[in-house]
């Protein structure tokens, strides 16, 4: 079983590498070896880097999220993350105008946005877990309600925008891998490496936490503390990805589902690396097919969300809310 796991992990990683190489070199219009050729390869490398970060964040983040919330349906987006991103973006355009927003693009804005989102998550978890009725269901319910509140707020502000401002805003609210911020990539990668290392060190604790509160406490794990740490780390990952390419609701769900299917068991020693590999290969292959075979780069998020949403619905109908 161990060897078959290793073979699968290697196989999927090789797929990801092949897809990455294909994205970099397939159909380059400039003559091979010329300066233009390498410029194009370089710009494509930014896309590949972005995809790797986004896939890692959503794949690993969702697997960890599933472990601590003891379910396989909910994704971090349900904690109001996507909605928070939308309300921040809409608020920026609403209060400062489209011109100011376009001018302020850069590392600072991304950092501020990430910090805001993590702070929001930490406050929410901190508050909810310090109360007497600290339960995960309450937390999730509050997440859903806050998410709805944020969405309504965004919709309200969007109604008051001029059509041109609304147009600029809409372009920002859909994720776009091709136009992610280059300056931000190394930082995003660094955060991923750090968070990944912390999670990897805690992988056995995550196994215990996924057995539920009572068993975890009986096994000597400080359950509440571990859950909060894990959720904050997930918040960091998702906010990195969201700041980079915008909201992706179903990507994490699809990657996690595939990971569980491929690995079979739930040990995090196996699911964490596999989630990263599966995430990378899924997103790289999807990007290659859509961008280089169908020339539909702008549609990538829409199609991932469409496919992911359908899989999500199918899963719900087949397995129920468990």
């Amino acid at each position, binding site marked *: 079983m161990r060897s078959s796991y290793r073979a699968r992990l290697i196989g999927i990683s090789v797929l990801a590498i092949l897809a990455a190489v294909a994205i970099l070199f397939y159909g380059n219009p400039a003559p091979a070896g010329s300066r233009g050729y390498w410029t194009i390869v370089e710009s494509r490398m930014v896309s590949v880097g972005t995809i790797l970060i986004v896939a890692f964040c959503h794949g690993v983040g969702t697997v960890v999220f599933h*472990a601590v919330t003891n379910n396989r349906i909910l994704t971090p987006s349900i904690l109001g993350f996507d909605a928070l991103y939308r309300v921040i973006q809409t608020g920026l355009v609403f209060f400062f105008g489209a011109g100011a927003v376009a001018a302020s693009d850069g590392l600072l804005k991304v950092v501020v946005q990430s910090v805001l989102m993590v702070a929001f998550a930490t406050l929410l978890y901190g508050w909810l877990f310090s109360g007497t009725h600290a339960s995960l269901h309450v937390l999730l319910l509050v997440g859903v309600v806050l998410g709805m509140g944020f969405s309504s707020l965004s919709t309200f502000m969007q109604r008051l925008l001029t059509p041109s401002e609304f147009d600029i805003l809409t372009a920002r609210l859909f994720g776009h891998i091709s136009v992610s911020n280059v300056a931000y990539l190394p930082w995003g990668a660094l955060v991923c490496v750090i968070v990944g290392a912390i999670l990897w060190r805690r992988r056995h604790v995550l196994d215990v936490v996924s057995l539920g509160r009572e068993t975890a406490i*009986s096994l000597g794990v*400080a359950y509440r503390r571990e859950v909060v740490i894990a959720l904050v780390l997930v918040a960091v990952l998702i906010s990195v990805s969201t700041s980079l390419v915008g909201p992706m609701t179903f990507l994490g769900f699809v990657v996690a589902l595939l990971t569980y299917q491929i690995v079979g068991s739930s040990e995090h020693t196996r699911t964490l690396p596999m989630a990263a590999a599966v995430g990378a290969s899924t997103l790289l292959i999807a990007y290659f097919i859509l961008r280089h075979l169908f020339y539909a780069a702008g549609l990538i998020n829409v199609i991932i969300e469409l496919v992911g949403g359908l899989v999500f619905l199918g899963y719900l109908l087949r397995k129920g809310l468990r």
Partner: protein
Amino acid sequence: MITVSNLTKRYGSVHALGPVDLEIPRGGVTALIGPNGAGKSTMLTIIGRLLSGDSGRVEVGDLDVVTADSRELAKKLAILRQENHFVARLTVRQLVGLGRFPHSRGRMRPDDVEAVDLALEFLDLTPLQDRFLDELSGGQRQRAYVAMVLAQQTDYVLLDEPLNNLDMRHAVTMMRQLRRAADELGRTVVVVVHDVNFAAAYADLVVAMVDGRIAHVGPAREVITPYVLTEVFGTPVDVIEHRDRPVAVYYH
């Protein structure tokens, strides 16, 4: 020894437990009996530090369960609740292996592997060890959880209604195995049981609770009597002898 002193617990305005004073000696099987809502599970979960009491103290061995380091406590005391729903997909062996977590912190050494083998063997799970939990019957799954708790190798093992949803055969097997865990492995086993006859047949000490208080404590022969049971359960109970053990009859 488990020492409970002056323990109380309320759920909102509902009085659930106490004040309770109780000493459970080391070794043997202790059974907690009583009607629904008597506070048996509440007391057990407080002793197992899954719930905190409103006042009073609980000591297990020489550790106070509230203030002691949870990790150290996990080497002395294990508790198993009746509901164990989780979506993680594990094999029997992986689950039992997690019982070694307080000792191994996830890195299984040879003595951890040995403890897991022993626990699997003890509960006749060796042939099923590579099966996933969701492929097992209810009785087998219950056994796997008990194996996990035994693999933890704690002096004290608390089990909340381990016979729930088990048929006759599996219930008897489970009680026999718990008895053997006490006799052969030297564990102190504390169980909440609904069927007083299992307490009568297997327990050394029986604790009868009513309305959050302890009504009677003593050897099975002293507690499983018509007078005590009729008072505790509030329904006429007769006790007959079978193979030198008292058996309660309460169906009429």
